[in-house]
């Protein structure tokens, strides 16, 4: 068609010609009606190589094209995808049955050796998925449709981790020189970074990084084609919030999964658009260094006020999260009583209930702990990482002032903030803001990073022997009922000790035209094979 239109040239000519021709074609092949969904978010996928970046938008794009052995459905439950079933022959050995009759976009058939190749590729440096699946010791194909994975010790959350590991075609990757995800030393662009060959419901037909990516329906996809009616997805990244929303309102895009809070009312007021909301898999909290002998920024010397649980409780009771929700977040938050999000295994509504806002009780607790006039401390805060991060800190500091604790704010860009929190460089952080998402949807992730004594992000220096024991146990226990008991016990101890001050769960806001249905998920990742344009 294109050559014909170009041949006749002239834009108006082109338009009228295409109208005439499409009318003609509708006449011949009716009812063919192509549904295009124009999707926008602030950034683009960094690379189409499915293992080179463990990053949100990158996975969002890869997920439409590539598939894993298992996947999360809309409600984040584990579902079979390229594997139809699995079993443990012993706690360290997993046998997966690979789905029959699946083909890659280039037409070649999926076999167990493709799966084994992909897992090994993902766990080989310089893949960015190395840390996520470091428990996997080996992966090999037993026959064409049987895959065996061995882990280093039992790993009860292997399936959760495998959701993030996309399966590539072994022969295609090898033929195109991308056996590994990127070769730093060669300094060359790998072909797989700008082209994709998956088994998924869509295939990429055009890729201009940061400008436009076009996905077309994969007509030979193995899954249920009738659950979506999208023929073409166009990804058009727009970094500037105001421009993205203007493009939505003017009809240039159909759907965006990132909506700034201040524009929600405007979009809701438009009759042609709608908003979809769900709690996000990210909880915001304050950490207080309770393990060091003395705080770096405090006027109290020789002892650490945060080491006293009464002081931590006093800080907790001083925070009016409902006020922050109304005034700072414009209603866009769910005040939290636990530092992990709903949807994560181990989360309970009971734990997610906040202790009451009670500044009088706070003052009493401070006096009992020996600080009737409060004390001074510095709060480190990012200013470009979480929704309204700095504004939350400013509001909280006002609330702490009411109970006599004089907090000074040190707000800075995320790359400096996280370095300071993690490495104490240039100064140790006595008190800091952090937000935590749980990609495995299991509490063990929270424990191994934030609560175990040796957790690499446990910068509050919380240490409890029983919690350490439980963390180790939940990492290897494969009996689900028993494991859930361990998790529940651990949360009871943590909630009683108040090592962190939970603030709130962030909210995922998506906006679309009224006739476009895309489910909002807690990880903000759209699944277009469940989407419909009506």
């Amino acid at each position: 068609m294109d050559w014909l239109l170009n041949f006749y040239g002239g834009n108006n000519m082109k338009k009228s010609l295409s109208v005439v021709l499409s009318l003609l074609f509708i006449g011949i092949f009716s009812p063919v009606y192509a549904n295009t969904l124009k999707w926008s978010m602030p950034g683009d996928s960094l690379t189409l190589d499915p293992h080179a970046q463990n990053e949100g938008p990158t996975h969002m794009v890869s997920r439409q094209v590539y598939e894993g052995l298992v996947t999360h459905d809309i409600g984040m439950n584990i579902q079979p995808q390229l594997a139809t079933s699995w079993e443990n022959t012993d706690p360290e050995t997993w046998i997966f049955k690979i789905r029959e009759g699946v083909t890659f976009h280039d037409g070649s058939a999926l076999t167990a050796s493709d799966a084994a190749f992909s897992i090994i590729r993902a766990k080989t440096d310089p893949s960015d998925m190395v840390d996520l699946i470091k428990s996997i010791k080996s992966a090999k194909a037993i026959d064409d449709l049987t895959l065996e994975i061995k882990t280093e010790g039992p790993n009860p959350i292997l399936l959760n981790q495998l959701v993030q590991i996309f399966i590539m075609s072994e022969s295609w990757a090898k033929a195109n020189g991308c056996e590994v995800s990127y070769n730093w030393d060669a300094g060359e662009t790998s072909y797989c970074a700008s082209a994709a060959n998956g088994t998924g419901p869509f295939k990429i037909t055009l890729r201009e990084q940061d400008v436009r990516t076009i996905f077309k329906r994969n007509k030979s996809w193995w899954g249920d084609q009738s659950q979506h009616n999208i023929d073409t997805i166009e990804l058009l990244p727009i970094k500037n919030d105001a421009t993205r929303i203007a493009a939505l309102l003017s009809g240039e895009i159909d759907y965006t999964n990132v909506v700034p809070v201040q524009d929600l009312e405007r979009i809701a007021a438009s009759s042609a658009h709608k908003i979809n909301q769900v709690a996000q898999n990210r909880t915001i909290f304050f950490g207080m260094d309770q393990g060091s002998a003395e705080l770096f920024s405090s006027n109290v010397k020789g002892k650490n006020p945060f080491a006293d649980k009464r002081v931590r409780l006093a800080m907790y009771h001083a925070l009016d999260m409902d006020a922050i929700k109304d005034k700072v977040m414009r209603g866009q938050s769910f005040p939290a009583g636990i530092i992990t999000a709903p949807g994560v295994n181990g989360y309970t509504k009971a734990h997610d209930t906040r202790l009451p806002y009670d500044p009088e009780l706070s003052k009493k607790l401070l006096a009992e702990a020996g600080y009737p006039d409060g004390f001074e401390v510095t709060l480190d805060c990012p200013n470009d990482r979480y929704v309204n991060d700095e504004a939350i800190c400013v509001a909280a500091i006002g609330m702490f002032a009411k109970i006599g604790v004089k907090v000074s704010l040190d707000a800075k860009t995320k790359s400096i903030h996280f370095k300071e929190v993690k490495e104490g460089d240039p100064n140790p952080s006595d008190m800091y803001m952090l937000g935590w998402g749980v990609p495995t949807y299991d509490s063990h992730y929270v424990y191994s990073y934030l609560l175990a004594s040796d957790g690499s992000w446990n910068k509050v220096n919380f240490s409890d022997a029983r919690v350490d024991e439980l963390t180790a146990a939940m990492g290897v226990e494969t009996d689900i009922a028993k494991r859930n008991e361990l998790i529940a016990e651990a949360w009871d101890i943590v909630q009683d000790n108040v090592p962190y001050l939970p603030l709130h769960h962030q909210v995922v806001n998506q906006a679309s035209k009224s006739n476009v249905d895309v489910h909002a998920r807690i990880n903000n990742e759209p699944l277009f094979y469940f989407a419909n344009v009506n």
Partner: protein
Amino acid sequence: MIIVAFVSFSLFNFVGDPVNNMVGQEASDERREEIRDKLGINDPIYIQFFNFVGNSVQGNFGISYQLKRPVSVLIAERMPATLELVFVSALLAIISGVILGVYTGINRDTFLSNVILVISLAGVSLPTFIIGIMLIYLFSVILGVLPSFGRGEVTDIGFWSTGFLTMSGLKALILPSVTLSLFQMTYVIRLVRAEMMEILQTDYIKFAKARGIKKKIINYKHALKNGLIPVITITGINIGTLIAFSIITETVFQWPGMGSLFINAVYFVDIPIMSAYMIMVAFIFVMINFIVDITYYFIDPRIRIKEENS
């Protein structure tokens, strides 16, 4: 250039840790350290600087931390978009600036002149992104006639991708180039106006008037010609500023140029892209100044005559 290289380079030592952005939160400390070693971040600063200068002289700006592609390729891909935008804005600024400047210079204190001057004041005082967003709301959301973002359809001519050849490409160019040119246009209007007013008071113009030469010829042939000399110098230098200003305009309009590449790089602490961009802009500045100095010599006879006399 060396100073720019040094300043930009030393700045990057304070922008934070790129490694935290490169690896997931799961990454172990050993792995972070390993990556730092690979990137050379652990070397002493003076060694890093020498490596950097040595490589950039050869046109090798390294590999982007985030995109994992050579920076020189990324910049070459993005350059046409920025240069086309800057070219059109500069043209707009000069043409409309000179026309309006001459008009307001000759017809002082008329109602229209005052209106032009007041509006041009808004052009300087309102920040670029507000003007851009206002234009988007007016022309895209309310009127629905122009696209709010992107570059439209582009045509590839060799290594150069151009938006000049398609209707959607030209349409997409309008809002960003107007936004970007407003500030410069104001500048040119005021400069031309001041020059015209000054020159119209000079003796030779008075003499020309006395000789009965037509007003049109006096205004456009004698006065404007002399008035344009400083305009050329200033606008020449300002083209460099336009390139720098285009960062904001490109971000507002999602224009796929070097500016938006740079902004993304800042967000990810992608040091190779940031330093390459700074060096590029500094280089363009130096080159433009050089060219302007040379043209000045050709345009203004006074400079040549002085030299010939001495």
